[in-house]
């Protein structure tokens, strides 16, 4: 087999092309791994503006400031809960751990949602009254 001869006949253009392609595909893979849009995200809004967009797979604790004080959200094991909130009835805290959907603290104007776009669309009902 003439592999040696072939190696000699590879032109510079070949080598350039090969290196470009390898570089392109590897950097593409790394870039895509970083962005990874498909993972579920946690969105925390306070006072009408989006404060945090976090992936659900990293455990952490964050807090946001609302008109009544500080609401603290804990993310752990792909779930989240509200551990502290200045509201009167602490309903948001009583919800406990959630894996999808949302927790809202109305008095402190904090909204914590899980899930991506498609999740919400595929629900059976589009809204709930009552």
């Amino acid at each position, binding site marked *: 087999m003439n592999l040696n001869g072939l190696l000699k*006949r590879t032109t510079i253009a070949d080598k350039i092309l090969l290196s470009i392609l390898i570089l392109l595909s590897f950097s593409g893979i790394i870039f895509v791994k970083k962005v990874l849009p498909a993972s579920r995200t946690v969105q925390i*809004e306070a006072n*009408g503006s989006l404060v945090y967009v976090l992936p659900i797979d990293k455990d952490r604790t964050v807090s946001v400031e609302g008109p009544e004080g500080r609401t603290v959200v804990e993310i752990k094991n792909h779930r989240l809960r509200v551990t502290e909130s200045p509201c*009167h*009835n602490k*309903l*948001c805290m009583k*919800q406990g751990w*959630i894996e*999808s*959907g*949302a*927790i*809202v603290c*109305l008095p402190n*104007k904090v*909204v914590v*949602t*899980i899930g991506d776009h498609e999740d*919400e*669309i595929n*629900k*059976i*009902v*589009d*809204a*709930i*009254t*009552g």
Partner: protein
Amino acid sequence: MRDKSKVESLKVTKSNPPTPPFTKGGRGGITKVLLFTFYFLLLTFLCACTSHKERIYRKSKILMDTFVTITVVSNSENSAGKAIDNAFSEIERLEKLSNFFSSESEVSRINKNAGILEVKVSPDILDILDKALYVSEKTEGAFDVTIGPVITLYDFHKKIKPEESAVKKNLSLVNYRELIIDRNKSAAFLKKRGMLIDLGGISKGYAADKAVEALKRNRINSGLVSVAGDIKAFGLKPDGKPWKIGIRNPRIPPNPPLVKGGKGGFSDDVMATIELNDMAISTSGDYERCFILDGKRYHHLLSPKTGYPAEGCQSVSVITKECAFTDAFATGIFILGPGKGLKVLGKMGFDGIIVDSQGKVHTTPNIRGKFEFKRTS
């Protein structure tokens, strides 16, 4: 195949590929095939370029002290976002005018000048008051925005219920007939000192109507606005089906759900679904703002006759074109009770679902077409 003729036609060298044997005027066949392929690919490419897929976009915000979600169908994230933001601004504008607890709102100005002088109001407030009075008449006074003085006696957070004497005293200030509006001057006047109007039973529905108008002005043809549980739907979803609304089961969970109109967590249990075709729906329930004291449930739907929470229903849902009306009538009919309530629905030509205090479900006759009942208990 190793014959001499083959060798002649095969003069292959690396650097000099031969001209193909088929050069003479391109034997019709090949050119035709090539052209066909080219045109075919071009055609499919062009067809694909012109299709704009319509998708559903949804955004939520806390406004009017509740959870507001606006859903639209659009072929671009940009136009969807702009339309939704405009609709939110419209709701914010209405909130400023109607907020009971803000001293700058028009409602507060009317209340402060009760028994003193009339107050000039914006067209929206005039419209709301006009509609409120209309509903008051049609519900025999069960819906009454002048309930303000009585409702302020209750504190649903601190679980405080008022003394009987206080209720009796303030009850005399509740009378929708003493709210005078002048359409020509665009003004409103409360005749007695101490009267207070609270638009909480109609402003959310009205806001939903106005938000939908804002969306339509922004060239959205299909969408859903839900201000807490007051929902207005228009147009069809991308799959051609109408919007599907779930009606909450008033007894699951037994205590107030976290957020009225919110989705998520364990607190959603839907007892029925209904498809809305350019209609609005509102639900009034005894579980929304309430507390239980000494075994009795005190909720926020107070009867203007007794000053105490109305008994007779667990929840009432009303369906008609305008959300301002579904909001106000749901409140009024809840207070009237199932018997009179169904009659009012019939007279007004609305659809409705009433869950009475025993848990029995009554619906208007026409509704059965688009309504699906899912109750498990």
